[in-house]
């Protein structure tokens, strides 16, 4: 099988996620070529194969309409059966555009393979589906972290410059960085996080209280931050922080992949949740099936009495 892997470049840097694309191609036993828009003088992906390289100064870091047109030219040359992206802000934006142009089925957020078919989560990971594209070409996006190389990537690509006079219809005006003020959760050894299951802002005090009783910090899932109940510098997950404490207590957090991505390096995970089927159970060493509004005050009281 022939694959075209689409690597990413952002804020002047090649993203490491290209190694996940390589890992996927490896499992599929595919022969792969790669596409990248980057500074042609900068760091290149480590792999042995054809690298179609478009100059970022000319085509922009995020200019999906232009990148689509460049990719379509590469597809003409390579005739891949599969075109693979990361399921990321770059990939989920670009992949469907290519799928429509090529009338190819797109399978999003693939986490595994089963008998040559692709497996992707449904309903927040509570279920999973096995899928296939009907046409000759399949467009795929891979869930971040689902595939990884056992060893460091090696090799030097054969660079093939991509040029063209594609024009886009949007204008990237710049980037805005996250503010990291006050606490630094990435260094905390004990983190107790609040999820939407806390129900109302007043209950954040319970989560903060347990964190204090354990001698740690409190964090939060995204909806709690979006509701302005907790500041963004305490958000754990793909669009927040990656943490690796000795103990992570997830209170009223369902365990969406974007949250798990931020806390899966924790040494010991406790989940407190009323829904025994919540996907956080896959990550939890201990799962307390309980209402946090009842359990947390008791835990705080008992810990203080120790």
């Amino acid at each position: 099988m022939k694959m075209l892997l689409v690597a990413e470049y952002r804020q002047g840097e090649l993203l490491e996620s290209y190694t996940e694309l390589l890992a996927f191609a490896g499992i599929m036993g595919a022969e792969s070529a790669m596409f990248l828009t980057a500074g042609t003088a900068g760091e290149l992906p480590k792999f042995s194969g054809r690298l179609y390289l478009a100059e970022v100064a000319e085509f922009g870091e995020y200019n999906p309409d232009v990148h689509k047109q460049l990719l379509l030219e590469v597809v003409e040359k390579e005739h891949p059966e599969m075109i693979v992206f990361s399921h990321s802000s770059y990939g989920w934006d670009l992949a469907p555009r290519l799928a429509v142009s090529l009338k190819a089925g797109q399978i999003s957020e693939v986490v595994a393979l089963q008998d040559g078919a692709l497996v992707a989560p449904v309903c927040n990971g509570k279920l999973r589906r096995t899928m296939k594209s009907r046409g000759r070409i399949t467009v795929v996006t891979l869930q971040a972290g689902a595939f990884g190389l056992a060893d460091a990537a090696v090799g030097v690509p054969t660079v093939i410059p991509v040029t063209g006079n594609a024009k886009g219809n949007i204008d990237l005006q710049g980037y805005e960085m996250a503010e990291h003020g006050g606490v630094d959760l990435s260094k905390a050894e004990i983190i107790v996080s609040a999820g939407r299951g806390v129900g109302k802002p007043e209950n954040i005090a319970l989560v903060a209280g347990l964190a204090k009783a354990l001698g740690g910090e409190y964090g939060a899932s995204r909806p709690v931050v979006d509701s302005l109940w907790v500041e963004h510098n305490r958000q754990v997950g793909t669009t927040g922080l990656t943490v690796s404490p000795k103990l992570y207590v997830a209170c009223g957090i369902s365990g969406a992949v974007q949250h798990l991505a931020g806390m899966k390096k924790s040494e010991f995970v406790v989940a407190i949740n009323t829904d025994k089927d919540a996907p956080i159970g896959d990550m939890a060493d201990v799962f307390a099936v309980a209402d946090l509004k009842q359990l947390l005050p008791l835990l705080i009281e008992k810990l203080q009495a120790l």
Partner: protein
Amino acid sequence: MKLLVCIKQVPDMESKFKVGAEGLWYDRHDLAWLMNEYDEYGVEQAVQLKEQTGADLTVLSIGPEQVKETIKKALAMGCDRGVHIVDDQAHLKDPFEIASMIAEFAGDKGFDLIFTGMQSQDRGSAQVGVMVAELLTIAAVTTVVDFAFVDGQVTVKRELEGGVKAKVASKLPVLITCQLGLNAPRYPTLPNIMKAKKKEMLSLPATDLRKAAALQETMKIEFPAKRSGGLFLEGEVASIADRLIRILKEKTTVLA
């Protein structure tokens, strides 16, 4: 100015799911249904833009009879008219088929701005919005967490990984896919729920719009294998608390 917002009805993710009879999707019986969370942000942004500019706002949903309830919520939030594309088999259609139906409907209407969710909570493909834009050959910006319309131009912030945002501008027409936290979706008030009952609700049979065939197929849906090893504590809360503290003492160093 003409606005369109696309919404999907999805089950409450805390539901107890079962595999459906065909083995291709979850069983749709005995579930509580809601507006897809991402689409609530879309509706709110569209209503805010309507309030800002006096634009005309249509809300559209594809699905069986019951999706009318969700369309009514959007009308109560401030949309002007509902379009229900009646399709009992919508849950078995792939993103391209759904996008094609929306594009077929929108094709000759000249919408200046279209809002969709970044993804649907059940399927989570994050495809339909971008595909609609491609089929209509208009611009699309995904994963938007900040939106402004000034001087006939749209300026948004896209959310990237790690808390970074990208500022992007686009002229009209443009399709925006909405990410969590874009705004604070309003709750429909009782008077507005009453008013919504009188708003126009157009029903179109899916067959009128169905021109495209599926590009993918599902072989099966199933529960993932549970990672074993995790210990479940159930029963009395006080006993759970005691057992949990004992485990923390034995298995971790945090109480040392």
